[in-house]
């Protein structure tokens, strides 16, 4: 069965450093992968999309890579700030039928940026 794995342990880093979060998946070849941010008590908010034919995507201080051979995506936040503290989730579409969308999420990694 398909599986999406993210580090369950919280990641603690110092302000100004780069945070790197990992999303691994098995038994699937997704056409794209999305990253979301979730704050406590709120719904997730979309951050970035990366497609299977893209190696890297950037948005301001965020960078996402997608290695379809390793079946892994890395999510980087450079020059991290305490306001970046949140849970970050990756999501893949596991629908087998075109036209359907079964966006399935990893369990998320909680990032804590210390001032």
């Amino acid at each position, binding site marked *: 069965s398909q599986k999406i794995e993210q580090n369950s342990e919280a990641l603690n880093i110092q302000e100004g450093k780069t945070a790197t979060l990992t999303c691994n998946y098995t038994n699937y070849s997704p*056409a794209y992968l999305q990253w979301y941010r979730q704050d406590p008590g709120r*719904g997730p908010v979309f951050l970035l*999309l990366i497609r299977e034919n893209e190696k890297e995507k950037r948005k301001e201080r965020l960078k996402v890579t997608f290695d379809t051979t390793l079946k892994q995506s890395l999510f980087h936040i450079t020059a991290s700030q305490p306001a970046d503290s949140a849970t970050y989730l990756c999501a893949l579409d596991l629908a087998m039928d075109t036209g359907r969308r079964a*966006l399935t*999420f990893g369990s998320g990694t909680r990032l804590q940026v210390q001032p």
Partner: protein
Amino acid sequence: DAGITQSPRYKITETGRQVTLMCHQTWSHSYMFWYRQDLGHGLRLIYYSAAADITDKGEVPDGYVVSRSKTENFPLTLESATRSQTSVYFCASSESGPGQGHTGELFFGEGSRLTVL
């Protein structure tokens, strides 16, 4: 107000009762989703829908029923609530899949916190 709204935001019920969680979006998005979120499990997909009258089971559909007679509404019903269904439920919608100029992003509601005693 425009957006995606869930109701009720908080609900306490008893084992065996039927509960319906409502989800309404004003964008006419084609795709809608229901997730539950529990500590240690992250977001788990219950049901998803590509359009009105088209629904599919996700990872954890047992004990839940959905309908989508209108594009903007996607209610989730627990036919006979159990304690294991105590959770936070999130509804989401999306205009399309990732395509030309589209990210396929999901827009989430604020969640419905359900407690089954």
